């Protein structure tokens, strides 16, 4: 996959085979890679320092073909799932299991750790929408896929499911809580599903695409509403939660939220703020006083128009981060094996890597009821 500019990508065969550049590296032959909703922010040209020629893709699985001299835990032939975070495992932040905040993987920014295929702001690493990919710190991130696990379940463990789970976890959900999830994309769907695991008593999802609302109702057994059919989503949520507001609100949308002309024009069209913060705005205004707002939607690095005065006046706790995928994997693998979560059910499109431009367009334009596209490289044998 080769990024050529906003809304333009193509499959190229002339990118060089990746090399071991550090003794802790591995080279992985990709068997599955996904397009993530976050990739669309890159695809739409919203993330600074996204350079022409980059390969995207931070959700992938693959077979180890080569390891550096310091790699001890992996060997050629291992089929691994690779968390999207590139993490050293030894810096103070990794020691705290904040793998998304590693201090030794992203030279170009300090606010975020290294991420595969996610612009130079996230370290300038080529990603997994390719046949082969360099995986730094191979002893830290990658996990050998359990033999009985479906490869589609495995690839969704690299980002989507852990991010949805951490969104619910950061919400501090208590037994019986009402949880509102903004966004019925793959992460919002998983957040709604995972809210039940923490004992939510009511889960409500807000989106504007009917096919996604239908999907999340069935998949996550929740209520789902189209904000286009509501005069005022915040007022509706207040009324339906006993006039107090929800206990927990989750922003699973990030910088390309629809629903507010002002936010759309200033954030998405004119780039005067770091994306449109409509979902966050609604989350802060819909949560009860003393409630928790959990943010996993991706925003740019500059400022946003958010109602910070309401955060103060309502005594809201805000929790947010890139997901620490590695920390959550043992628990989530167990949940899949126990049948609590069936991640692969959200995969709606399997597309050959050579047709990556069409896959991006389908996902970006919400065509063909697309929920989650998976790319299969020609060399994948599974």
């Amino acid at each position, binding site marked *: 996959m080769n990024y*050529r*500019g906003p809304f*333009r990508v*193509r499959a190229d065969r002339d990118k060089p085979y990746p090399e071991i*550049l*550090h*003794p*802790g590296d591995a080279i992985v032959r990709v068997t599955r890679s996904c397009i993530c909703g976050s990739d669309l922010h890159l695809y739409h040209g919203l993330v*600074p*320092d996204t*350079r*022409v020629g980059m390969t995207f893709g931070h959700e992938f699985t693959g077979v180890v073909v080569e390891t550096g001299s310091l790699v001890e835990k992996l060997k050629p032939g291992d089929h691994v799932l690779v968390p999207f975070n*590139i993490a050293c495992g*030894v810096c*103070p932040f990794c020691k705290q*299991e904040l793998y998304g905040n590693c*201090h*030794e*993987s992203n*030279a*170009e920014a*300090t*606010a975020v750790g*290294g991420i595969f295929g996610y612009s*130079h702001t996230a*370290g*300038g*690493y*080529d990603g997994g929408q390719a046949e082969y990919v360099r995986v*730094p*710190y191979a002893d830290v991130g990658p996990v050998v896929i359990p033999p009985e696990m479906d490869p589609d379940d495995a690839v969704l463990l690299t980002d989507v499911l852990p991010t949805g789970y*951490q969104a619910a*976890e*950061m*919400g*501090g*959900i*208590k*037994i019986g809580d009402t949880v509102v999830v903004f966004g019925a994309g793959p992460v919002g769907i998983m957040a709604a599903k995972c809210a*039940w*695991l*923490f*004992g939510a*008593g009511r889960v409500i999802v807000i989106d504007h695409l009917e096919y996604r609302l239908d999907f999340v109702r069935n998949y996550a*057994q929740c209520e789902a509403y189209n904000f286009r059919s509501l005069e005022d989503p915040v007022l509706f949520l207040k009324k339906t939660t006993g006039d107090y507001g929800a206990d927990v609100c989750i922003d699973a949308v990030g910088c390309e939220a629809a629903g507010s002309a002002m936010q759309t024009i200033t954030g998405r069209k004119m*780039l005067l703020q770091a994306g449109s913060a409509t979902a966050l705005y609604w989350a802060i205004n819909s949560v009860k006083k003393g409630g928790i707002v959990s943010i996993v939607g991706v925003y*740019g*690095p*500059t400022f946003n128009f958010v109602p910070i005065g309401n955060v103060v006046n309502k005594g809201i706790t805000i*929790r947010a981060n890139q997901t620490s995928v590695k920390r959550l994997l043992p628990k989530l693998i167990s*949940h899949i094996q126990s*049948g*609590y979560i069936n991640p692969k059910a959200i995969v709606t499109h399997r597309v050959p890597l050579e047709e990556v*431009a069409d*896959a991006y*367009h389908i996902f*970006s*334009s919400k*065509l*063909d009821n697309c929920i989650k596209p998976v790319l299969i490289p020609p060399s994948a044998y599974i």
Partner: protein
Amino acid sequence: MENEKSKFDHIKGWAVDADSRNEPTYPMKKYTGDDHQRLNYTRPYQQPRNVEVLHSNERPGLTAVFGTSVPPSGLSGKVRRYAFNYSEGSFGHWLPLLLADRINVAEGIIDDFRKGVIPNILSEKGWKAEWKYNRKGLVQKVLVTAAVTVVVIGLLRKGNANG
């Protein structure tokens, strides 16, 4: 809790991760007793630098590993180098980077031609999928674009004739 549980029997795994200690939830700071030494850890082996890598001025030098995907080059590279004089909290950092990205798109097209590649922009934009799944919308877009183009050309010609 038992009553609640029976109410949610239809949801697999309901409350399996409920934990009264989950407040204010993860990540909790892990106190090690020597937090004052937090940056004095043994850094991993340093990846040799064989391409130009820009680094945030909020940190000394490079991280132990770094990406080498697309080193800065050309005019966009000059703008990116300028941007890295400013910290991550500054518009002087991010706005030039966005400008560099736009310059880089034009450089990419020039580079394609230099290599003898004629970029198939319609294909790169995924118009095959648009034709397959949103034919009516595509036809509408083409017709509207054509109509606007004709009107603009007409207005320009009229302006020239009057001038």
